[in-house]
């Protein structure tokens, strides 16, 4: 079913949560783990709801998200 | 260095752990005892969120360099800090490591007097959260080095804590004491 892919580069995410707030489908969430930069990072919570609109990728100020679809 | 009373330290960890506050506090305590002091903070372009460290020198006469090449004692609150500073500590120096944060593999210095302190845990125990781990470490250091007396250290707290956070003073005292007593227990035990 899931024909979309949202790839977040965990080691580069700075946990600003902009992608999370911008995803109107609630696909993303802030995880609890800490990356090597010292930040909690964004994770895909629930890819099924994703419509591959690409907005998360567009809005990420650190340009660490890729969005793919079939 | 020719003076009777002379101590030098490096405190190091991440920004936000209160490294600089601990350094300041120690300076104030020494000032209360009429010592000469220098406090030298780390600085650089990329300070935010990065490493924080400071050098403290206490003496009974004018201090030359504020940056000891080989500090006699150290508080270490992060793994990078351990890697950076362990090699330069003076022979037989005192190193106090927050074992709740620092991952310790191979210390590679046999000569040092190393104490691993679960400072976060201790902080939680006495004040209900981990925020005063720095104070615990400082209490332990003062006990271990006797560079200032406990009373001065406690008195210095009100110098550093601003009016606004006055209610934090007793908590800080508790944390310092916890560290101080831990050392005494350790050395007794």
């Amino acid at each position, binding site marked *: 079913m899931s024909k979309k892919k949202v790839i977040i580069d965990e080691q580069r995410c700075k946990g600003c949560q902009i992608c999370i707030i911008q995803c109107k489908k609630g696909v993303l969430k802030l995880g609890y783990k800490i990356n090597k930069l010292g930040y909690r990072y964004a994770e895909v919570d629930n890819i099924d709801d994703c419509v591959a609109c690409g907005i998360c990728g567009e809005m990420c100020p650190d340009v660490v998200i890729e969005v793919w679809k079939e | *260095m*020719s003076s009777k009373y002379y101590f030098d330290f490096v405190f190091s960890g991440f920004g936000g752990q209160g490294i600089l506050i601990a350094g*300041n506090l120690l*300076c*104030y305590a020494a*000032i209360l005892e009429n010592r*000469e*002091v*220098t*406090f*030298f*903070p780390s*600085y*650089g*372009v990329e300070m935010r969120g990065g490493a924080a460290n400071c050098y403290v020198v206490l003496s009974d006469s*004018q*201090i*030359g*360099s*504020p*940056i000891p*090449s080989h500090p006699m004692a150290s508080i270490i609150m992060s793994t990078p800090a351990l890697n950076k500073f362990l090699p330069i500590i003076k022979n037989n120096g005192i190193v106090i490591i927050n074992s709740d944060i620092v991952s310790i593999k191979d210390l590679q210095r046999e000569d040092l007097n190393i104490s691993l302190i679960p400072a976060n845990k201790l902080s939680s125990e006495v004040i209900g959260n981990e925020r005063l781990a720095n104070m615990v470490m400082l209490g332990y250091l003062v006990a271990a080095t006797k560079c200032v007396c406990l009373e001065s250290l406690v008195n210095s707290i009100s*110098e550093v804590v601003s009016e606004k956070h006055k209610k934090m003073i007793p908590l800080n005292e508790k944390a310092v004491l916890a560290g101080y007593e831990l050392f005494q227990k350790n050395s007794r035990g």
Partner: protein
Amino acid sequence: MEKLFLRGSEALALGAIDASVKFYAGYPITPQNDIPEFLSRELPKVGGKFVQAESEVAAINMLLGASACGLRVMTSSSSPGISLMQEGISYLSGSELPAVIVNVMRWGPGLGGIGASQGDYHQATKGGGHGDYFVPVFAPYSAQEMYDLIIRAFDVADKYRTPTMLLVDVMISLMKEKVIRRFEKRSEVKIKSWAFGKVKEGEQKIIKSLYLKGNDLERHNWKLYEKYKVMCEKEVIYESYLCDDAEIVLIGFGMVARIGKSAIDIARERNVKAGLFRPISLVPFPEKELEAISKKCKKFLVVEMNTGQMVHDIQRVLGKDIDISFYGKPSSYAPTPEELFYKIKEQI
């Protein structure tokens, strides 16, 4: 007298307040921002004016205006900003207007870095601006001296009607130490009869640096030079540490001297007869005092955090019979006391 625990920069800013500075203009630049930050908070409380200028060029010229009105004025900046002020400093000198300029040196040339450096000795002492003039320059090496010397700088500036500079090592500016606030209750500074008062008094006052008629400008240039000569007699300050029996004397200013002192202590512990000579006033340079030492000691080691600037002045003062070696460290890593001790040992 209040005893405080202050960063060098805070001590300096507080000293300025105690010296009755009433006007500050400056432009942000690392690593001296805590000075304007302190003064933007504190100056209004003592009836002073703080202006964040649009640039260093504007800042130095705002000083020119406020100084002409008789106020004690200051600015602070760091190396590239000081370069931009050179025209203004030359005008202040030419117009005989007092002002205090603080340079917390960064590491050049160009944008360089913000690390510790002493790369601006030449600029500060030889006049980075155009024309014949000398600016008195003081180099503090402790928080207490940051406090004391800025007050002295204001006094010297007024006495000689000249811009005056504090050349500060960034490490001195960052370091916290005990400071005795000696001059908290200083009486107000004297009214300057040459300056613009609240209204025009008597004759029209003209403050300018343009001299076109006949030999007026030549006379003016010699007048500036004579002021400098008087300074050379009266305003020299220096520190000499264990030089009396020294076989080698280390020379450094600011932070280097501070570290040098520790190096001398190490040397003495190991029975190496080393001493330290520290010019505190870089302009006027303590020429006679240094010469006096060279009557006894024939070996000198000059250390600077640059590729060799003050060493030129020392060569000039000491001449060729003296053995002068130079250790330069144009590096944000200050030399350590041990390092300097080894350099001393290498020379003897």
